[in-house]
């Protein structure tokens, strides 16, 4: 596109411009916190509305007893799920030793879908924690493992792992922990269950996504058309406009 808009003499500066644009391109950095493992990547397909609703039902089953979605209550999807303000827990500031379960309306934006997906699946048995579980993505998390009955129990493959690998960043979490007792769901079903919840939370964090994708192509198409028409007009008429203004101005 840029190339079409250029006359010969401008190539030089625009090459430089392009170079600078590339040089300024974003440095992809996510807030990973102090995870001990690399995050799994999860494909978030927000066009799958049935799946979002399914994730919402899973959320109601597994999360809603502790976590609220305060900003989400008036959303059509919340209506469809029957989510109401009354169902949502309200925690006093000083409950849970000063760490009440947070509202999750924006969690997929403040953390990332990948983070959530990996975090929810990397609990392992740790007797030293009050909840009996620890986590690889969010070490010493206060949240009890919500999926013990579904996932089963994961344990450290090597019980002395952390004594030997202090500060080590492991690429694959399943090299550190393994499933010891199977839960109600098979590992594949459990991954999908968590995936659904993550998809739902991603939608919750910014429900404008659907309307954005609906309007987006129209706006961009309009702009492309407008660019081509005005550029064609400039190409047609530009050469006539080098005349000085009338002297009597």
């Amino acid at each position: 596109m840029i190339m079409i808009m250029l006359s010969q003499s401008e190539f030089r500066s625009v090459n430089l411009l392009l170079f600078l644009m590339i040089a300024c391109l974003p440095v992809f950095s996510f807030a990973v916190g102090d995870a001990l493992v690399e995050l799994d990547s999860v494909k978030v397909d927000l066009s799958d509305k049935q799946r979002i609703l399914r994730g919402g039902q899973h959320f109601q089953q597994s999360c809603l007893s502790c976590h609220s979605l305060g900003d989400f209550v008036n959303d059509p999807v919340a209506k469809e799920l029957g989510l109401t303000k009354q169902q949502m827990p309200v925690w006093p500031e000083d409950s849970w030793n000063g760490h009440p379960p947070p509202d999750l309306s924006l969690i997929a934006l403040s953390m990332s879908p990948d983070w959530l997906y990996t975090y929810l699946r990397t609990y392992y048995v740790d007797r030293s924690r009050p909840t009996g579980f620890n986590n690889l993505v969010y070490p010493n998390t206060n949240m009890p493992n919500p999926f013990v009955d579904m996932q089963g129990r994961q344990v450290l493959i090597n019980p002395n792992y952390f004594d030997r690998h202090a500060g080590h960043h492991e690429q694959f979490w399943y090299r550190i922990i393994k499933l010891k007792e199977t839960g109600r769901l098979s590992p594949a079903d459990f991954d999908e269950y968590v995936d659904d919840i993550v998809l739902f939370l991603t939608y919750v964090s910014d429900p404008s996504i659907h309307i954005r994708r609906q309007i987006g192509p129209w706006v961009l198409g309009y702009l492309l058309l407008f660019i081509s028409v005005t550029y064609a007009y400039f190409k047609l008429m530009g050469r006539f406009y080098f005349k000085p203004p009338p002297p009597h101005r």
Partner: protein
Amino acid sequence: MFLFLLASAFFLFVILSVLPYFRGVGVWIDRRLPIFSFLLEHLTYYPAPKNLNMWYAFGALAMVACVIQFISGIWLVMYYTPTADQAFSSVQLIMREVPYGWLVRYVHSTGVSMWFIVVYFHIFRGLLYGSYKTPRELLWMSGVVLLFLLMAEAYTGYVLPWGQMSFWASKVIISLFSSIPVVGNDIVVWLQGDYEVSGVTLHRFFAFHVVGFSFLILAMIFLHIIMLHSVGSNNPDGIDIMKHKDRNGWPLDAVPYYPYFVMKYIPIILFYLLVFFIIVFYAPTFYGLFLEAENFERANPLVTPLHIKPSWYLSPYYAILRSIPDKSLGALMMLLSILLWLFLPWLDLSPVRSMRYRGWMSRVALATVVGSFVLLGYLGLQPAVGWYLVMSRVATVLYFSFFVLIPIVSYYDHDHVVPERIPER
């Protein structure tokens, strides 16, 4: 919806088409309020050098960015509540419940980054073609002031959503004032209006963002354009077009701004909007650069985020601040990194404006300062440890070396001969 759009577009189209028939009304008004002759003078018959290229579109784009921010800003204020317990949720109200609130908010949040991109390219163009040199010293200085005001505006606006980054960034920046000797700590309390950054601070930032700095920016842009139009535009060859005029006093190398340049820049402005809306519709957070992940968490004075990062457009200055292992000196150097630009017209001793006719030494100097600025921008977003810290110190030294080197370099450089008239290409 679509029909409504078409109908109103057609209505506007008809109005625009019949406007020329009301020329008499225009003349009547113009006799009493010379607004049309003013526009004719400054938009239509402004003598623009005929070789202005794409780089000169960034000035117009900066105006477009300004208008976008003002309109979306006015609309945001209709729902935004500047109190500590309401601010965060009022932004969510806009995002979720207000019709098209998400669009207005994303346009405003994308708009600031796009404005800075445009402004940085605009400044780079000034450096490239020597637009700061005589007689445009004041024009250049007003631009530096504008950059400063824009940073103040962006910073006060950044605090308003009252997320974690808003809170901690405002705390970090305000603490800079504590490095002022003797009265520093009192100034911090005075700025905050509280013993800690709080809702009181938020409320005054709101006032400055919405009415204070924004109107100063408008006024300064107005002056900037007045100054530009009284000395005339520079051009890629850095040639003074006012030396050769025809019998009517029209510069021989100039073209009326309208229609040629207006029509040339309209597709470019639309292309800017295309990029703008690709971001708004498909990547509004722009991978955490335009809207930081940490800022989607409500401000909590008890928990500091792991890495406090500035917005990308302020990160070069932040990198300078962090690279200097002394608080007061760091704050001073950060301030100088912008203020020194004010003196550039007098630091550059070369008689030649444009890089097209400057020798290799000047080019290297320019590349050094631009390169180190971009590098600092990258490093400011990374944690200040290990190699990052070493590199940011090197980049800081390179950045400031420009101001020391440029008088020497520009004095001894082997510049080419600048032609009298703009050459045909």
